């Protein structure tokens, strides 16, 4: 049985359809991702799964229960890390965890023990008695993640867990989430960072405009929708467009962005050699492995972060 099961799931806000009939199944122990740009319907989907937003249509079962009828039961078994930290500014770091535990009916003694454990896990033990306000963005995020674990949830929902964090803070969060995954916790996360999806997700769906445009493991998606390597060319000119014709025939496909041209190829070095033989001399050349960003670009013609 899938822990999360959705068929034709729809969310409407007035005339606007945020989620337009998606099918999703998340299995126990999986790390599942929703990848897509802002406004793709990721957060709306997460809120429906978190039982804080009633679906406008379709089927949704979570832990084999109905979110509308058994919201209280389901939420008791979920951990939620929202997109914007909503930590309690009147409480200390530790109290944020113990107080939250009480909302789940966890006895005080257990709550204290678990708070100590979790503070250790997210490396905040030293700040246990500090207020939330002076913490850095990364620390607040880690505390929010710790708070989401206080009820030992079966599913942890993470809405853009590293948006707005600096690279170092992001890596620390990823590392902790990876450990959770290893412990067998089912993770469901949304992101618009392809590296995050590649690092953390066993399986993901690519969302755009409220629908799912592709589904699979990061590797299979890249294999299916992109080439092995990508050559990024930047020409020193007002517009990159005139150079596209001159590149005709090199690689399987090409994509023109405002500031560069992407060549989808099997062998990057061969392609670069072909470009210079034309002869063309781009100001900048970068050969890299293909990523989920390229998958997204192929599917929608747009970049993930703009």
């Amino acid at each position, binding site marked *: 049985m899938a822990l999360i099961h959705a068929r034709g799931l729809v969310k409407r806000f007035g005339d606007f359809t945020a989620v337009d009939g998606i099918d999703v199944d998340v299995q126990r122990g999986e790390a599942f991702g929703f990848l897509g740009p802002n406004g793709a319907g990721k957060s709306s989907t997460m809120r429906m799964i978190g039982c804080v937003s009633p679906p406008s249509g379709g089927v949704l079962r979570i832990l084999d229960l109905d979110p509308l009828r058994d919201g209280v039961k389901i*939420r008791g078994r979920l951990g939620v890390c929202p997109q914007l930290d909503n930590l309690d500014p009147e409480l200390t770091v530790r109290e944020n965890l113990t107080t939250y535990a009480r909302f789940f*009916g966890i006895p005080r003694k257990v709550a204290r023990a678990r708070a100590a454990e979790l503070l250790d896990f997210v490396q905040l033990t030293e700040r246990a008695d500090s207020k939330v306000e002076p913490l850095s963005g990364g620390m607040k995020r880690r505390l929010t993640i710790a708070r989401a674990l206080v009820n030992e949830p079966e599913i942890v929902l993470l809405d853009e867990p590293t948006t707005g964090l600096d690279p170092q803070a992001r890596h620390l969060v990823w590392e902790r989430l990876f450990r959770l995954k290893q412990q067998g916790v089912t993770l469901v996360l949304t992101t618009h960072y392809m590296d995050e999806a590649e690092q953390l997700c066993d399986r993901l769906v690519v969302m755009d405009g409220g629908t799912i445009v592709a589904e699979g493991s990061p590797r299979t998606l890249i294999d299916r929708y992109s080439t092995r390597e990508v050559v990024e060319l930047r020409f020193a000119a007002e517009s990159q467009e005139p150079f596209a014709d001159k590149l005709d025939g090199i690689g399987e496909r090409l994509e023109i962005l405002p500031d560069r041209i992407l060549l989808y190829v099997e062998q990057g070095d061969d392609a670069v050699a072909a470009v210079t033989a034309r002869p063309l001399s781009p100001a900048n050349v970068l050969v890299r492995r293909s990523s989920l960003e390229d998958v997204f670009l192929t599917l929608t013609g747009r970049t993930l972060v703009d």
Partner: protein
Amino acid sequence: MVTLMLPRLIASEGPARRSGAVIERNATSLRGAYWIVVASGFLEPLLYLFSIGVGVGALIGDLTLPGGRVVEYAAFVAPAMLASSAMTGALSETTFNFFGKMKYWKLYDGMLATPLRPIEVALGELAWAMIRGNIYGAAFLVVMVAMDLTTPGRAVAAFFATVLIGFTFGSLGMALSTFMRSWQDFDIVVSVQFALFLFSGTFVPAQAYPAVLRWLVEITPLYRAVDLTRALCLGGVGWLQLLDVFYLLVLFAAGMAVASRRMGKLLLK
């Protein structure tokens, strides 16, 4: 609605326990500077009592109540201060604090991601406001007894009235807060609250107003609250006070219904 809601709360321990966790959260946050706010809530009615009740009262002398009884002015003002401090305590907790927690700190978003439901959050917050308001009320009644403005027995009865008044204004405050768009909107609440405080038969008997105005004053919730506490503190309880109790209960139920509905609408979309 009260009769529908309360048995359900008592029957299953879940909801009551969860509302209790909201109270616990507030108790945990209560420290430091917050005590100053709480203390001022008690001092305010006391200052009014001494400055106007005793000070101005010395100029006015005794007052003849509509029933024909004669009381000293401080004894006339004190029950009104009691009722309005119950209102102020309940409103400050359920307007400013409630709004800030909901809109700016997003605390309720966090709470509703747990098994807590909107009605449980609302009841927990209200119960907390009541604890705070009732401490003011009890302390003020002790002062009234010490100043010989009422008897201990009547003070106990008046205490229960302040609990009811607190619940009513607390639920009204919460319902109002769900309609507020920004802090500026609270200026209106503060103005209305102050107008109620001045004109609800607090300092002058409503009989002193022209007939039309008098009717208007007499249907305001604070007037009914003052009428109730005054009758309890000074004696002369009758059918009218039963009406006061009924009126306050209806407002309480309406406030709760609106507050939890609106919270659900705002937070669970």
